[in-house]
């Protein structure tokens, strides 16, 4: 099952959502803010995109919904990474680092 999940193409929004949850649980708006911070404001995750991605990650067991709280009459549901979610994120990170190293060495060889 882990192999299947690792083989699955992890799109950028899903990767960023997993990354936003790497250091603790967050609610929807918290994830949007964290993604903007991670990407230096380059990516503004739309609410529809965010919940579509969360639905898939929850269905795949990579993220689980946690506690609910109501702030100013608004429901906030917190999400956190599971073990498989953390593993998938680590594998994706290693894959990206490996690609970056390969590209860097080619650039260095060309100059």
């Amino acid at each position, binding site marked *: 099952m882990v192999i299947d999940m690792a083989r699955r193409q992890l799109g950028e929004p899903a990767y960023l959502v997993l990354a936003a949850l790497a250091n603790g649980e967050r609610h*929807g*708006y918290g994830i*949007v803010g964290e993604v903007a911070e991670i990407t230096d404001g380059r990516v503004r995750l*739309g609410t*529809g*995109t*965010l919940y579509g991605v969360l639905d*898939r990650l929850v269905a795949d067991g990579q993220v689980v919904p946690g506690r609910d709280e109501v702030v100013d009459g*608004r*429901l906030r549901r917190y999400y956190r990474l599971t073990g498989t979610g953390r593993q998938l994120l680590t594998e994706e990170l290693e894959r990206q680092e490996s690609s970056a190293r390969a590209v860097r060495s080619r650039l260095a060889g060309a100059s």
Partner: protein
Amino acid sequence: MRSRVLEMAMHAFPRRFRASRGEEMRATLADVLATDSRRFALLVAVVDLVIAGWALRLRTRPPLGRYLGFRLLERPLPPQDHPWLFDHVQGWFRYRQPAVRFLCVFAVQVPFLVAGTQVAVAELYVFASIYCLSWLMVANIPYFARRDRDRIMRRHGFVPTGRR
């Protein structure tokens, strides 16, 4: 106005999804739009909701073979497709089948409409009958939709409840 537009856009998401995550989505949308100063922030949010909602609908619908078997031959769907089935029979899609039946009857009367004023008195009776039958079918679309829904639910081993 703004909340009504967003509420309409959220209908791109399946009914079951809106029931389970609608409230927190509305809260997140409100937080995001309150801090987004872009000129077309609302339009961007609406487009994003519609695209993400329909992507989720397509992703969670039964595979094509099972879907066609269900739609064309009314083959029962396996349990993993039941959440989709409940949405299907409760949403406006259930009006499609009776509406198609109406269109078939309506198509029959087109030649009579084309003939117009040149029809004989006897043909006028035929025309009037078909015309009345068509509108009778329109009036009965909710009845046929309910009947279809109940039949589908029974076929999947569920007891239909409620009159919606």
